[in-house]
């Protein structure tokens, strides 16, 4: 332990870990304040899908940049990070959704993202357990999955940050106050506590958005790509109603990870059987044979949601030494590495690879 650090980060999830790794790579001394296991919150709950998303130009820029950083890090990722270059298939149920497939294809062509339009036959060949009668899909080749808690641990180890096993009770530009009454002083502090960030930095526009997940026993080959229904976009977009969408993902173990649900206003961790049931029935609508598989575990987690679906990255207005790195909603695994780089670039006064402005705290947010 030092008397003072260049950077002190509250939160040892994948975003805090990526900030630690990027700051350490820039030559800064780093402390991470995390009372629980590294990557034990939303990081452990999430699916670990590394995916390019096109909700807005800023979301494309951040996810694409970050996916590139993941691909660059493959040679050094430890085996337990379970990197799986499986690609994503956006599944289209009908002709209306096929129009969306073609729109996405054109957009992705324009930004150099490798994709392939699948007709009904190609879709059935790629994923034989999908139901018959689907219209097709869009295969995005270079998307992948990782096992997030181990990836977070790897980033922390790489950073050689001092990990302080306590809760952060307060945070300001100069210090993180600890639950035992002590404090960690630092040149820059970073609030990377995900959905809990408003408890340390009141007033920021981050809300808990609960999700349910389920994982099956090992059925190698049952699913070979990350499958997401195109209706997912409608589900993820709705900022009011509870929603579910079909999302199935292969794991290196042969297990099938199933999602997804989205709820505002439900702040307890307990599994809600009606919501879990809705989610699993939605999955079965797309893959009827899922009903024959054994689910071995279900759990919930909390995404850190913002009104405009973009994270908060950068210094706080009014306290330039306090940074935020939160609000990544369902994309925290994908966008963690880019977030770390942007934070480190901003601290070091370096020109970032992509403009920081769309993610700056204090921007005017419009829900869409």
């Amino acid at each position, binding site marked *: 332990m030092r008397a003072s650090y260049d950077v002190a980060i509250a939160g040892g999830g994948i975003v805090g870990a990526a900030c630690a790794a990027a700051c350490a790579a820039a030559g800064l001394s780093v402390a991470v304040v995390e009372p629980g296991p590294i990557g034990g919150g939303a990081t452990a709950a999430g699916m670990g899908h590394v995916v390019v998303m096109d909700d807005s130009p800023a979301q494309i820029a951040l996810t694409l940049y970050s996916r590139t950083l993941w691909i660059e890090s493959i040679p050094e990722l430890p085996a337990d990070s379970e990197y799986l270059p499986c690609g994503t298939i956006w599944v289209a149920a009908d002709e209306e959704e096929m129009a969306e497939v073609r729109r996405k294809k054109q957009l992705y062509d324009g930004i150099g993202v490798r994709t392939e339009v699948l007709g009904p036959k190609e879709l059935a060949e790629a994923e034989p357990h999908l139901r018959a009668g689907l219209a097709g899909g869009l295969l995005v080749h270079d998307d992948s999955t990782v096992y997030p808690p181990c990836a977070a641990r790897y980033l922390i180890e790489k950073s050689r940050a001092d990990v302080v096993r306590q809760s952060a009770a307060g945070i300001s530009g100069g210090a993180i106050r600890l639950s035992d009454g002590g404090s960690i002083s630092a040149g820059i502090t970073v609030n990377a506590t995900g959905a809990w960030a408003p408890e340390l930095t009141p007033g920021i526009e981050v809300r808990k958005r609960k999700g349910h997940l389920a994982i099956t*026993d*090992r*059925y190698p080959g049952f699913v070979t790509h990350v499958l997401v229904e195109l209706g997912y976009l409608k589900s993820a977009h709705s900022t009011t109603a509870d929603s579910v969408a079909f999302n199935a993902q292969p794991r290196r*173990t042969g297990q099938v990870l199933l999602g997804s649900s989205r709820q505002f206003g439900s702040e307890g961790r307990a599994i809600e059987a009606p919501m879990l049931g809705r989610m699993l029935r939605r999955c079965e609508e797309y893959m009827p044979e899922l009903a*024959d*598989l*054994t689910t071995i575990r279900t759990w919930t987690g909390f995404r850190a949601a913002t009104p405009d679906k973009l994270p908060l990255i950068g210094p706080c207005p009014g306290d330039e030494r306090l940074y935020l790195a939160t609000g990544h909603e369902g994309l925290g695994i994908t966008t963690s590495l880019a977030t770390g780089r942007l934070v480190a670039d901003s601290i070091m006064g370096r020109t970032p690879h992509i403009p920081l402005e769309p993610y700056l705290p204090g921007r005017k947010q419009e829900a869409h």
Partner: protein
Amino acid sequence: MKITVNGRPVDVPEGAMVSAAVSLAGITAFRRSVTGEPRGPLCGMGICFECRVTVDGRAHVRSCQVPCRPGMEVRTDG
């Protein structure tokens, strides 16, 4: 009645569970753990999940909980 275990015919008495049939076939490793260790029945009452086999193409069936039916095809991965 006759069933097959890993393609070989096995004679089992009426009412026998699949786990008994697998044992009668002389198999002790019903399946392999994630790290490749042999596994077999432990509790015999459906709790431990150690005795899972594939029955008529359906994976991860607890063999101690399923009675044999004539012509059933059982596979172990031990």
